[in-house]
């Protein structure tokens, strides 16, 4: 049992399942069921958020290892335990997904088709994502990682747009292929280490020649989830066709599952292959940043443009992770958080227009700065954060990644910085087209500014964006210890003879 005296991680993870049971057993006429399902889901997700915040408060940042560890025997015969724990890296991803879920649930308020099923799928998704970030056993991790597919498949397929079936099947098969390859890697590492406990796996050396294969398997899995170019082709379809709340979860939380996988497994467990593959990953990241930014620039649809901007930012995160510097990895982590908030804000801004029956075609929008000033201000803030404007969350992450990259390779850092310029280019195009271009379409005149509910969704996000941009220390001091431990361990395992002593390893083992 952990220091709190109750299994807080299991509670956070499985609380949404209680909500699922509640919603599934609702009785009454359709109207009442829909209302109760919405409120039930919202309350459950808010309680989860409160617990996650409590977790943040009681978390001890001085300690780089896993905290609040729980262990229960699970698959006998295989020696797999149900193990949960958080460290500074996973803590914020838990917070991120607990924070985004209620917002996404509110944004689904306008869905009227099969509300009960939608809310059940959403709460299941909540359980899966949080459980995945808490998992301290590889099999437990894998179960949550892949189980995300089931609710997401239904969310895209039932509530999606016109080409929803194609998008849902493509999403499912792409991710399934990736995860099954990871399953093979998992079983191989299991044989190698004799256990699936993540802490033990972190300390079990793997022969360098095997690392290459394992690296490729992990890349297939995490790369698809994180939509690393060129494994991103499912993404525009899925983001475009999913209903708005689904898109938010995909972009803000599910893509982080991939980058979290890189940080948790690939870099620390496969140091040799990671070091060898770093140029490859830089190339993929930089290509994503530049090429996808150019593709984004060419989009004529607001939602798709935002979707491509997401791929570009994920490219930057990948670059940051593979610098193996403290700055680069911290930058990547901050960028992961920032991207979660910013992309949610942008998609909700797109949803605001959709809810007013507006089109997503950029050329048909315009002049909203005058008609919807509050909306315009918030959209501007998120767009600036996406460009990496100082004072917003985007800046801190990008500058750290670029500093980290500079330490390793000048060209990588230069090209990533180019990406920021391109990012500014397409975001400014978006802003101009939506907010400023004068159009004389009379239909636009009647548009109302943000409603109270929309305001309530966007303001917390905006506050997080500013907090992260103005005072990032409240976040960085929590993952400083594990990140520097990880970087030290990485170099220690590359040159075992060098003087660098893996001091913090002993602490990680705790």
């Amino acid at each position, binding site marked *: 049992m952990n220091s709190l005296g109750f299994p807080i991680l299991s509670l956070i993870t499985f609380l949404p399942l209680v909500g699922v049971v509640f919603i599934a057993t609702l009785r009454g006429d359709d109207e009442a069921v829909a209302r109760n399902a919405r409120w039930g889901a919202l309350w459950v997700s808010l309680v989860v958020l409160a617990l996650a915040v409590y977790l943040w408060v009681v978390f001890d940042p001085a300690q780089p290892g896993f905290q609040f560890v729980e262990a229960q025997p699970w698959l006998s015969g*295989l020696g797999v335990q149900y193990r949960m724990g958080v460290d500074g890296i996973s803590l914020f991803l838990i917070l991120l997904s607990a924070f985004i879920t209620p917002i996404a649930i509110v944004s689904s308020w306008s869905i009227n088709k099969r509300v009960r099923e939608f809310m059940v799928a959403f709460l299941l998704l909540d359980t899966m994502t949080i459980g995945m970030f808490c998992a301290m056993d590889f099999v437990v991790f894998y*179960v949550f990682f892949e189980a995300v597919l089931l609710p997401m498949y239904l969310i895209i397929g039932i509530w999606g747009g016109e080409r929803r079936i194609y998008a849902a099947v493509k999403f499912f098969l792409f991710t399934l292929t990736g995860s099954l390859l990871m399953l093979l890697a998992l079983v191989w590492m*299991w044989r190698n280490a004799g256990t699936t406990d993540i802490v033990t796996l972190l300390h079990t050396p793997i022969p360098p020649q095997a690392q290459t294969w394992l690296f490729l398997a992990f890349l297939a899995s995490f790369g698809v989830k994180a939509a690393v170019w060129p494994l991103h082709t499912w993404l525009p379809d899925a983001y475009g066709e999913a209903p708005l709340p689904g898109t938010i979860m995909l972009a803000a939380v599910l893509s982080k599952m991939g980058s979290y996988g890189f940080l948790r497994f690939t870099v620390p467990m496969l140091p040799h292959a990671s070091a060898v593959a770093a140029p490859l990953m830089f190339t993929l990241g930089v290509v994503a940043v530049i090429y996808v930014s150019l593709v984004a620039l060419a989009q004529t649809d607001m939602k798709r443009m935002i979707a491509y901007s997401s791929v570009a930012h994920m490219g930057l995160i990948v670059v940051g992770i593979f610098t193996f510097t403290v700055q680069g990895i911290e930058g990547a982590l901050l960028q992961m958080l920032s991207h979660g908030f910013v992309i949610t804000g942008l998609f909700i801004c797109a949803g605001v227009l959709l809810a007013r029956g507006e089109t997503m075609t950029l050329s048909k929008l315009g002049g909203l700065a005058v008609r919807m000033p509050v909306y315009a201000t918030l959209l501007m803030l998120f767009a600036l954060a996406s460009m990496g404007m100082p004072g917003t969350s985007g800046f801190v992450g990008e500058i750290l990644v670029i500093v980290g990259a500079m330490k390793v390779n000048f060209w990588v850092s230069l090209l990533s910085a180019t990406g920021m310029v391109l990012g500014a280019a397409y975001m400014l195009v978006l802003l101009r087209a939506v907010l400023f271009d004068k159009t004389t379409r009379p239909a636009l005149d009647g548009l109302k500014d943000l409603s109270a509910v929309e305001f309530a969704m966007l303001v917390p996000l905006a506050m997080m964006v500013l907090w992260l941009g103005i005072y990032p220390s409240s976040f960085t001091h929590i993952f400083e210890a594990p990140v520097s431990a990880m970087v030290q361990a990485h170099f220690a395992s590359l040159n075992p003879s060098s003087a660098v002593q893996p001091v913090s390893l002993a602490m990680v083992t705790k």
Partner: protein
Amino acid sequence: MSPLFPTLLPELALGLGGMALLMFGVLAKGNQFITCSLASVALFAVTGVFVLLAPAGVVFDGLLTTTDFTRYADVLVLLGAAAALILSLDYNQREDIARFEFPVLVVMAVLGMIVMISASDMMTLYLGFELQSLALYICAAFARDSLRSTEAGLKYFVLGALASGLLIYGISLVYGFAGTTNFAALAKELNASQGAGYGTVIGVVFVLVGIAFKISAAPFHMWTPDVYEGAPTPVTSLFGTAPKVAAMALLISVMMGPFGHLLNQWQVLIEILSIVSMAIGALGAISQTNIKRLMAYSSIGHMGYALIGLAAGTEAGVQATLVYLAIYIVMSFGVFACIIAMRRKEQAVETIADLAGLSTQKPGYALALAVLLWSMAGIPPLSGFFSKLYVFSAAINAGLDTLAVVGVLTSVMAAYYYLRVIKVMYFDSGSPDFDRAAGGVRLVMLAGALATVFFVFIPGPLVSAAAAAAHALMG
């Protein structure tokens, strides 16, 4: 040598009970289908208790052996057969094939399977094998007024007889070259002579082929789609569960027991069977429109996965196969319950397209089928994932990385066709207007789906039972 009475109790109960039911059905007035069926289910339950209580031991001078391994397989067989009988209650009445012979035949088939499982001599093996086969041939053709059912029965009989022929030929070769039919003596003989002569190896291959027919491992799977499609659905559900378990248990006990020392000779054959079955199962199903044929290919694929554990040739591998079988039959009877529930205006429908829009009309039914199919595709956290995890882990630990890689690739292909059914139910619009399913059918459906979902929380009992069974065989 153990005392005959308590050790042999399950076989005695089934044999005597089956004959009593036969007499009762013949002598009693009126149609005794329901009475006989319910009595048979009760008989299976009683036999199950006997199986668990009867002491382990060897009887009839080493003809039959009871161990934890046979107990495990016996319970699975009884479970599968009981589920099939419950499914048949309503179906057979509606299809006008409600005759008391049906449950009696099933009881006899189960007796054959239990003898097969406990056999520790080639002669008892063949005896059990034939008893279950003959009873099942009749079951397949039970809807004798239906052209498809008769065809299925005939096809099954002709190919099954061929398989029996190969099996008995293989047994005679083994006997001729090794000089004995007793498993323990064979094991000793094959070990002592440091490998075996060609004659014995050829005999082993024939035995293997004969049994591979019964588990419908490719390339000996030709009969499966036609028989699955043609036979009355409860019979199909029986084919998909009990005989598969019995034949697989037989294969394991023969390969690991008397032929255990020839592992190097037969391992590659099992690997080939496994790879080909997984591939045929995945590719063949893609173009199917009839859901029963789809399930036939799916079962071919699943047998391929189950064989991975046997190919590993280790105790962990046998355990993995046993876990796989248990999880598979539960999913399987769940899916067949869903298929039996596909009736519109008193008419059974069988195409996948008939399911369109099911999720809006009958959400519970659609959810149960979706969960079962996802589990068959091996998506966690459903039980089907864990069965695959066990076999892949056994394969990689035994150094059979190729098998694991092929298994993973075919899983993706198989996921596609399972996903297609789910797509039809959830994303396509339509109104299936299915009749309300009978209580027994809904019960089996619910049991299958719940077991599939909740396995992740309590995997312990099943896994440790399989471990004990594998240990009894290999230890």
